[in-house]
């Protein structure tokens, strides 16, 4: 195979054929590399596109590479085609606004995981595993882990969303939590928490672990809601001081 020839007139309005290969050589090259196109398409799975669509994009890119391939240049066809097919697959996602969609998809999955987790907790009587969440949402385990990781950021963005009219999440978190968002800070939180009086530890736990409102805590502890508010403020201030002290000692 491989000789120069004039491109000549195209046989169809949209069909592009190789100026370098005979029709038989062209067909042979396409047929023998369909497996390559399929394998490359599979590398792009789990990004929200069905395999069939990806295989189609890859196969068309394969045809394009065959039609552009000039054997006289001494380039290995499979290497040349791989580059073209991956380029086309990437372009496919880019043209579909994939960068935006990917972010939205992760956000959506993160939200979906919240619902699935609640349902599975009810159903199983324990927290679900990643594998169970993956099965429940139809996502891969990797996607679930990725969404959970990404969800740490989205959670911060959704603080202003109200969970209910009388208890918006922003009110629950307040300004105090902002500085304790990182894993590193939370690692310091344990020792600092242990230095607080038992009642303050208990109130903090009810508020931030059990998710009780200030009014509910007030009823549970037998004090006024205003008093709970003041206790929370002072406890959080003590925690902050303790963490800052531990942080400075660490550095």
């Amino acid at each position, binding site marked *: 195979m491989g000789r120069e020839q004039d491109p000549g007139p195209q046989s169809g309005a949209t069909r592009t054929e190789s100026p370098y290969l005979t029709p038989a050589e062209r067909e042979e090259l396409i047929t023998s590399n369909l497996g*390559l196109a399929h*394998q*490359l398409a599979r*590398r*792009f799975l789990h*990004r929200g596109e069905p395999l069939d669509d990806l295989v189609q994009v890859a196969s068309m890119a394969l045809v394009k590479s065959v039609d552009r391939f000039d054997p006289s240049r001494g380039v290995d066809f*499979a*290497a040349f085609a*791989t*580059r073209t097919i*991956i*380029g086309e697959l*990437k372009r496919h996602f*880019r043209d579909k606004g994939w*960068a935006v969609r*990917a*972010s939205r998809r992760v956000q959506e999955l993160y939200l979906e995981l919240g619902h699935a987790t609640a349902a599975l907790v009810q159903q199983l009587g324990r927290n679900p595993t990643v594998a169970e969440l993956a099965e429940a949402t139809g996502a891969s*385990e*990797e996607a679930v*882990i*990725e969404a959970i*990781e990404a969800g740490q950021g989205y959670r911060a963005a959704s603080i202003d969303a109200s969970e209910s009219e009388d208890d918006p999440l922003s009110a629950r978190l307040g300004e105090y939590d902002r500085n304790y968002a*990182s894993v590193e800070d939370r690692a310091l939180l344990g020792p600092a928490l242990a230095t607080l009086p038992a009642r303050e530890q208990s109130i903090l736990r009810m508020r931030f672990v059990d998710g009780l409102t200030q009014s509910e805590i007030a009823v549970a502890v037998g004090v006024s809601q205003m008093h709970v508010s003041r206790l929370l403020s002072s406890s959080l201030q003590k925690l902050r001081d303790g963490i800052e002290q531990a942080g400075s000692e660490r550095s």
Partner: protein
Amino acid sequence: MTDPTDTLVNGDRIELRFPARGDLIVLARLVTSAISARAGFDIEELEDLRLAVGELCLLALHGSDALHGDLCLELTVLGDAIVVVCTLERAAAADVTGPEGDEIALLSEQILDALVDEHGRESRDGSVRAWLRKRRGGHAE
């Protein structure tokens, strides 16, 4: 505003070690995502790197007795690039000449050609080492 403690800068190096099993390559991809994002790679470059690191791990595993040893992934931020080195230490005697294995390795190398700026692989003293380098803003295709 970007939190300065959430970024990786020149010279920062992260190491991940895990049992040399294909089903754990997901760990390498996840860590690569997190590191690439913190090193300022855009989402497309990040996806390229994820894909490339998967192939890198396959290359390191290729031809080895994958039931033994650890895969060590080392990611270093060097200027506007990330260098990833995947090492399979003390790999058992390997049949690297099998046609099927060669085909797998060849495909991985072709994919790496399309995704990163540079890559390579060498075997020495029973260890297999595969590496890649990708720059930000390079959009290899």
